[in-house]
């Protein structure tokens, strides 16, 4: 009997693994090896400029991070960047999704516009904002001057705070659409009966939002949070084109520093260690996210 009872799930398991095999093979062949290799390299002193000095140094690269000023500063910039970008993205995406979830003339057009930034490669996004923020001929300067809000052209990206905020804004514009789609999709599945019930209870708009919309949106919101955290932590092309990380260290995020360490300084060992710290942080946040879902009890895999 026991054998018979177990046969069925075993068959499913085999079938499932067979179905997963193509995807797993592609990923294992192409990514698993580079990932393992990069971890191995992170345990080495490995600068492509000095191949003869390469050697295994265990966790020394990681230990050195604790006193690595560039790394610590970049980590701080990144944390702030993630907070600002994430905060703005979530708030703007939520409002935009709520607007799009209503019926009004021009809704289709607005939805189309909401998809526009998604179609823009990060490099092009950086170039676009560079012409807009330009100190001499930029559209932002032109617009604000014509509206009478400023008296003369400003060099927006020359102060640390300015560069940081404008870079974050450019990044938000680029990453907004994906969040909007997910949140809008979530909103579109809220059964209208729930709202009707709330209306009968004479709940005001705010109460309805808090009591019906937010709980229902919790899951899509968390998905947005996790994906956008990952994206913001790894944001590179827009910043690179817009400020190159400056002025000073103001926009040198950990992702930018990592690319610079690997590609410009050819320090593959240290760069890999940076990358694994980024991975660990992203993983921690994701675990937190999944834990949160479990507690909510609606994580069904």
């Amino acid at each position, binding site marked *: 009997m026991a054998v018979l009872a177990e046969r069925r799930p075993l068959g499913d398991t085999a079938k499932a693994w067979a179905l997963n095999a193509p995807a797993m093979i592609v990923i294992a062949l192409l990514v698993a090896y580079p990932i393992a290799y990069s971890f191995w390299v992170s345990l080495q002193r490995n600068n492509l400029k000095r191949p003869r000095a390469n050697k295994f140094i265990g966790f020394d690269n990681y230990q050195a991070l604790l006193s690595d000023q560039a790394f610590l500063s970049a980590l701080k910039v990144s944390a702030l960047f993630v907070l600002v970008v994430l905060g703005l993205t979530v708030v703007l995406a939520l409002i935009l999704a709520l607007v799009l979830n209503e019926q009004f003339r021009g809704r289709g057009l*607005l939805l189309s516009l909401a998809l526009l930034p998604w179609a823009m490669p990060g490099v092009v996004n950086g170039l676009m904002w560079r012409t807009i923020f330009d100190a001499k001929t930029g559209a932002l300067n032109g617009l604000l001057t014509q509206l009478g809000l400023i008296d003369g052209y400003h060099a927006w990206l020359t102060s640390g705070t300015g560069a940081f905020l404008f870079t974050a804004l450019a990044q938000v514009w680029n990453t907004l659409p994906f969040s909007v789609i997910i949140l809008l999709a979530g909103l579109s599945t809220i059964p209208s009966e729930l709202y009707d019930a709330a209306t009968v209870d004479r709940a005001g708009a705010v109460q309805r939002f808090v009591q019906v919309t937010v709980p229902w949106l919790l899951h899509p919101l968390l998905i947005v949070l996790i994906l956008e955290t990952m994206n913001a932590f790894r944001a590179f092309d827009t910043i690179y084109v817009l400020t190159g990380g400056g002025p000073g260290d103001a926009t040198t995020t950990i992702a930018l520093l990592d690319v610079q360490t690997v590609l410009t300084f050819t320090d593959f060992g240290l760069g890999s260690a940076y990358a694994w710290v980024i991975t660990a942080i992203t993983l921690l946040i994701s675990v937190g996210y999944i834990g949160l879902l479990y507690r909510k009890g609606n994580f069904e895999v």
Partner: protein
Amino acid sequence: MSTVVKVPLRYRIPWKKIVLYVLAVAFALYLVLPFYWIVAMSFMREVDAIAVPPHWIPSHPTLENYLGFIHPSEAQQLVGGRAIDETPYSLRNSLIVATSTAVLNLVLATFAAYSFSRLKFRGSQVLLVLYLLTRMVPGIAIIIPFYLLMRTLGLLDTYLALILSYTTFALPITIWILKDFFRSVPRELEEAARVDRCGWFRTMWSVFLPVAAPGLVAAAVFAFMTAWNEFMFALFLTSTKAAKTIPVVAANFATDFNTQFTVMAAAGVLAVVPPLVLALLFQRKLVQGMAAGSVKG
């Protein structure tokens, strides 16, 4: 005529409508203005593009910036002509790479996602998280080993190298999107088909997949965008116009000597149009496709 009587009685300021339209207009401006600026610039002459105050509408509209991609003028050939010359090729390459990535992704992800949505099996959660884990390692960490791998396989500067790498990037997310959508497809559909003695593949092809279309569209568009927008791997894995994609060429514009703003803007516009058309064509399905996924786990 009765409405005329009723209006004053029931008239309330439609706050909700007003707020809605104000927000809609504000968002529309926020979304479109930056892009409008490069579109406008792409139809301007260089002198007008850097004018102060800016010309919001091209005062001497010209197609020169676009025509230059087909027939570079003598001046363009002289200065930094390579990025200009490569733009049409890179658009073709991007289209081929992104489309192939989307297709390959759909095939691989559909199989995998089906298993998560229909079969109970041990290790399924671990596997799902493992897929996602491969996306958490930043690209820069794996780019050099990846380059070496592609070199060993002799795939440098080919479409295949890019298609394979983007497929691995997009797969984890597309599997998640699809598994959630597939779950929302009622099992009864397949069971009914099986009663009709359709084989498993027939069932999938003619019954299951059509119902799952919105999810497939969402996944495909996601994969397409991932491939279209990626820069760093394209930079390393390609070297000639045989495989360079549009972000790589766009980056050339940023660093080339003597690049004109206006030509750069035209290239930027061209880089946005194909994925935008795709997203617009499928926008309804896109939202539907994500809908199932974002609500359930």
